[in-house]
């Protein structure tokens, strides 16, 4: 079954053909979550989540601690039952056919638990048997994931003796061993050093187009670099969802430029007057030893006015420009803005300060 649904890796062209009308639409959506609710002893951990993930997409799942990320992921894997709502993976409902769903997913839980006293190769073999991969194909798959996750050197080492980076890669190798249609990873880069984070990120990026990937993380730049789409949740609700640029536009809106020039703030304001409505010089630092001052210029609109700015500045003969750059709001700002907005909404609804739990 998994074989039939498995789509070999091809160029992005293939992805377009996948959107073509002749393909079964049920095959395109691999994760379908509708009105998902999970209550733990009266507390709503997940409160009406609805989202879908298409085949081949990498989706980042973002949220503060206790937002319900891990709970949602556990429900998706069929490990936890939901209180209400509907979840289906590759068109198979998780609640009524969990055993079938488990054949389509690869899951790496938080903290990546692994047995300490097994060798990497043995562990992969054991997991492959549990995932119902047969003899010859299992050997091929183990070779493939060992190669892909760069585990050749540690293949015969004990898992308990491996460094955290290697353990994490063993976890990912295990998750992709069965060529799942959906890969779910809970905080795959937690506790790794920047070098290892880049390795894991590249590894995840290399899965793009082959399987749907759902990753949760706190580390925002990383989500931004790997993911096609971001879902931000807070207190069990979706507060924002979209591609990183879309989210920036919606939640941060304003555009900020950084300019270094040898002129006073008044002169710069005079030169740039009227380029865009409400454009103003927010801050100035300097001048430094060479006489250049660093300005921060902002507009509340989302349009890029960089070209107009440059034209004005080069038109003024007495202003020498050393640098002009657009400051991109980080996903961090988006995240903060989106979660703040959701708290404000709950506050309005309850009529009292609704801080998150």
């Amino acid at each position, binding site marked *: 079954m998994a074989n039939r649904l498995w789509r070999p890796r091809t160029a992005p062209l293939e992805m377009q053909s996948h959107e073509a009308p002749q393909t079964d639409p049920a095959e395109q959506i691999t994760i379908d979550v509708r009105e998902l609710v999970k209550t733990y002893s009266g507390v709503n951990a997940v409160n009406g989540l609805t989202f879908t993930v298409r085949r081949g997409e990498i989706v980042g799942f973002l949220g503060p601690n206790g937002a319900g990320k891990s709970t949602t992921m556990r429900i998706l894997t069929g490990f936890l039952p939901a209180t209400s709502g509907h979840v289906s993976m590759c068109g198979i409902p998780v609640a009524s056919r969990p055993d*079938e769903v488990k054949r389509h997913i690869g899951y790496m*839980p938080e903290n990546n*638990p692994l047995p300490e*006293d097994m060798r990497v190769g043995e562990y992969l073999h054991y997991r492959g048997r549990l995932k119902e991969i047969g003899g010859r194909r299992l050997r091929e798959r183990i070779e493939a994931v060992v190669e892909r996750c760069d585990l050749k050197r540690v293949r015969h080492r004990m898992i308990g003796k491996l460094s955290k980076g290697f353990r994490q890669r063993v976890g990912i190798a295990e998750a992709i061993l069965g060529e799942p249609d959906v890969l779910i990873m809970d905080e795959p880069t937690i506790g790794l050093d920047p070098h290892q984070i880049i390795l894991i990120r590249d590894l995840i990026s290399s899965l793009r187009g082959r399987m749907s990937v759902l990753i949760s993380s706190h580390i925002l730049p990383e989500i931004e670099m790997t993911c096609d789409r971001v879902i931000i949740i807070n207190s069990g609700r979706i507060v924002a969802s979209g591609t990183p640029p879309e989210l920036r536009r919606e939640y941060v809106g304003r555009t900020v430029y950084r300019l270094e020039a040898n002129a006073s703030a008044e002169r710069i304001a005079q030169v740039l007057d009227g380029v865009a409505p409400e454009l103003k010089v927010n801050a100035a630092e300097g001048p430094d030893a060479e006489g250049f001052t660093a300005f921060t210029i902002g507009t509340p609109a989302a349009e890029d006015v960089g070209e107009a700015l440059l034209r004005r500045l080069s038109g003024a003969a007495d202003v020498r420009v050393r640098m002009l750059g657009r400051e991109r709001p980080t996903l961090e700002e988006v995240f903060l803005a989106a979660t703040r907005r959701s708290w404000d909404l709950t506050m309005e609804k309850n009529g009292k300060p609704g801080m998150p739990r």
Partner: protein
Amino acid sequence: MRHLPTIFFHELRVLMLAPSTYIAAVLFLGVMGFIFAGILDSYNKEAQDLSPSFVFFSLFWLPVLFMVPLLTMKCLAEERRAGTLETLLTTPVSTAEVVLGKFAASYALYLFLWLLTIGFMFILDKYAQDARFLDPGPLIGGYVFVAVSGLLFVSVGVLASSLSRSQAVAGVLAFALLFAIIVGTRLVSDLTVLQQEGFTRFRDSLENVQVMSHLQDFTRGIIDTRQIVFYLSGTALALIFSILGVEGKVLRS
């Protein structure tokens, strides 16, 4: 049930690598060896009514009380503590397969350790050169009893392990449950309160679950189906509760 062999052999391997298995094995063989030597010693001094194997098996409960908890305490508690239960149950494996596989592996090891004690009999046979010492009836009866009652004891150990996250708690709980089954039933039936008229039925049913009297029957060559049903149904019950224990913990974790 196609994953049962995979889990069984994996568990057997885990047990073979665990230090607690070797502690259990050494303690078991050491204690049994001392008991056996003591029995031979007493037979040397004066003639006894019963055959040595009969006396040997009547002390079976002593190793059971410490060996079974040591063998089973790890099986589910450790997986839950390490979090590997979550990865295990998100593969196409059912909880029943996990519990049965672990039970089967522990039981196989339990039987294996008991089979090692056949060596004692072999040595006795070789050096005593006297067929009277090795009465095959009680010997076979004794081993059949160990095999049948072992099902219940090991499944109780697995049940204890399914209820806790800590190996130590699981071990102590298994010890307490086994003590209640083996010794507790006798202590309760000896209570003076139960000698009153109204408790006759209760006392009768208690008599039927006396592990010690089952052993006597088996070594005398009486294989009573009621007793076998008692052990088999007890095993099934303990395993069903273990499955519920694992799933219950899954729901609450």
